């Protein structure tokens, strides 16, 4: 009996910090946001409850176009991060020797030590019309006049992929690391070629890591603010920018809160769809890895 009480107590004590974190920092602010988003300003200092802010989103094509744009570009960035990150992760986990593995992993981590802002400025220095790449091309004679690489969607996608790729590599390395090399050997012994082994053995085994990596990179990309703002051009709107505009430029906190909730719902929906379409569940992927 006493033993049971002690167990219960230790469970409560261990769980308390997590519960406090979830309730105080995640749930309460979101409840506040929901309440705020359901208010409508009818006159200075007078508010009433209504769905006006959500209706405004539906009725104004600019807003949902921006949200769809943000979503599709985030998916593209996630796919690119997976395509580029997978070979890197495979090399680190399976091919590199035990000594170089740590070094390679460290090299991947180093960009994280600088802030988003500095990384974006790095890209600006490289891509701008009078920047490093443009000047190099001029010097080699490949182009006759300076070329502008900055201020377009390609720059945004490059910058975002660079920022988030690490969050794809880390879970991939940790799942691939646990894979027994003899499984790959067995695949070859049974007559499979490189592609079959990749498709039938490695990818299914790495699935938990792939799903976890995709979820994290997608969420980070869709919610990023600095990189799209700094690298984007005159036509490239990002949904987080709309939220900022609502809150700061238009003093419309109610609208901004509604947009924030919509972004959360939208990204959750995309992830749910992705899991359904790929036949995965959170329990046997993210929770497992």
């Amino acid at each position, binding site marked *: 009996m006493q033993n049971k009480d002690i167990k219960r107590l230790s469970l409560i004590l261990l769980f308390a910090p997590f519960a406090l974190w979830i309730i105080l920092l995640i749930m309460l602010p979101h409840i506040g946001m929901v309440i705020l988003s359901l208010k409508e300003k009818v006159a*200075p*200092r007078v508010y009433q409850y209504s769905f006006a802010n959500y209706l405004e989103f539906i009725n104004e094509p*600019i807003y949902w*176009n*921006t949200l769809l744009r943000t979503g599709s570009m985030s998916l593209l960035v996630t796919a690119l991060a997976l395509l580029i990150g997978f070979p890197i992760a495979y090399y680190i986990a399976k091919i590199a020797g035990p000594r170089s593995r740590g070094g390679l992993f460290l090299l991947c981590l180093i960009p994280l030590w600088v802030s988003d802002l500095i990384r974006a400025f790095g890209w*600006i220095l490289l891509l*701008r*019309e*009078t920047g490093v790449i443009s000047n190099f091309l001029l010097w080699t004679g490949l182009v006759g006049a300076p070329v*502008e690489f*900055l*201020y377009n969607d390609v720059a945004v996608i490059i910058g975002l992929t660079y920022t988030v790729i690490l969050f794809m590599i880390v879970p991939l390395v940790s799942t691939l690391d646990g894979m027994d090399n003899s499984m790959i050997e067995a695949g070859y012994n049974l007559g499979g070629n490189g592609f079959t082994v990749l498709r039938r053995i490695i990818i299914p085994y790495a699935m938990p890591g792939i799903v976890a990596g995709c979820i994290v990179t997608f969420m980070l990309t869709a919610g990023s603010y600095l990189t799209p*703002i*700094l690298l984007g*051009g*005159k*036509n490239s*709107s990002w949904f987080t920018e*709309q939220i900022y*505009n*609502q*809150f*700061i*430029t*238009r*003093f*419309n*906190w109610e609208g901004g809160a509604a947009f924030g909730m919509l972004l959360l719902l939208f990204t959750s929906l995309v992830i749910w769809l992705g899991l359904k379409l790929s036949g995965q569940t959170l329990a046997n992927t993210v929770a497992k890895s």
Partner: protein
Amino acid sequence: MHFKSTLAGLLAATMLAGAGSAQAETLRLLTWGSYAPDELIEKFEAEYPDIDVEVTFSNNEEMIAKLRATGGAGFDLAQPSHDRIYAAQLEYDIYKPLDLSKIDTSVMEAKLLDGVKANTTIEGEVYAVPHQWGTSGLMADKTKAPGLKSWADLCNPEYKGKTSMRLKRTILLGTAFSMGEDPFAAYSDLEKYQGILDKVADKLIECKDNIKAYWKGGDDLSAMMLSGEIVGSETWDSTAYKLFDQNENIVFVPPAEGALAWIDTFALPRKAKADDAAYKWINFVLRPENVTLMSASTGAIAAVQGGQDLLPEDKKAAVNAAFTKEDIDNLKFFANIPPGVEDMEGKTLEKIKAATGG
């Protein structure tokens, strides 16, 4: 026993520290970047050793958002522009009235003081007095874009891909003036103002093709201008003066329609806790010897009598290269923003940013 005495020592130390900070007053400034140079803060703290100055840098929109979040608490002195006080006070109740008897208003330029007072008086109480003023207009590289004279010239195909602007309300107003409208006069009739905004939006969407990129802050504007990637832009005068220091061909151009003039003010947040220290700071920075230090940092002109003569020499040269007497007479002061206008303008700006045409 040993543990207890350590604890007692710690307690005593905390109490001492607490008592110490209770004696020294803290003045929490909410102001623009460069409006509180270190040199002036050190001088102020030397003169009033019991006041600590803490500075938070911000801009008009964020100042109001910060004060709105706390109902006017957290800061002791704010410096929004004169057109951002009346509506913000009506809507969010974030400022408190000034006690003018504690401010040495006699040193202020009478025209500016009266203008700010007229704009920020609610129910007989004055909410702000002027501090620094300057203009928004154009900047051009004389050698590459000698013909850049009007807001509309930013959309001149001659400079295709070589101009920039900030997608904020200044360019909406400037473009409206260049189309022969008077947006400030239309503030009293919001329906008419919406009509003007729609016309301005069409014009600026058409103009998008001509723009290289929208600048977001003084740094990226300076980089584009100094590297020659653009030859002209909408700008704050202070940014143009800073670039004039580095390249004498880059000058501030007051647009033919009149440069748009702003006045940054002193205003007390509603729940400010150090009013006396705030009044001391206001009177301190208005002293002639401190005005020069302040203007050297801000690049703007102090709203005191003879403020232009108190500019440091390099800034004086830049101002003289930019403004003639007629330009000064032609200044258009930002009119009070009535409630609702920010929302209309914000929506127009979103429309322009999202448009892919042009």
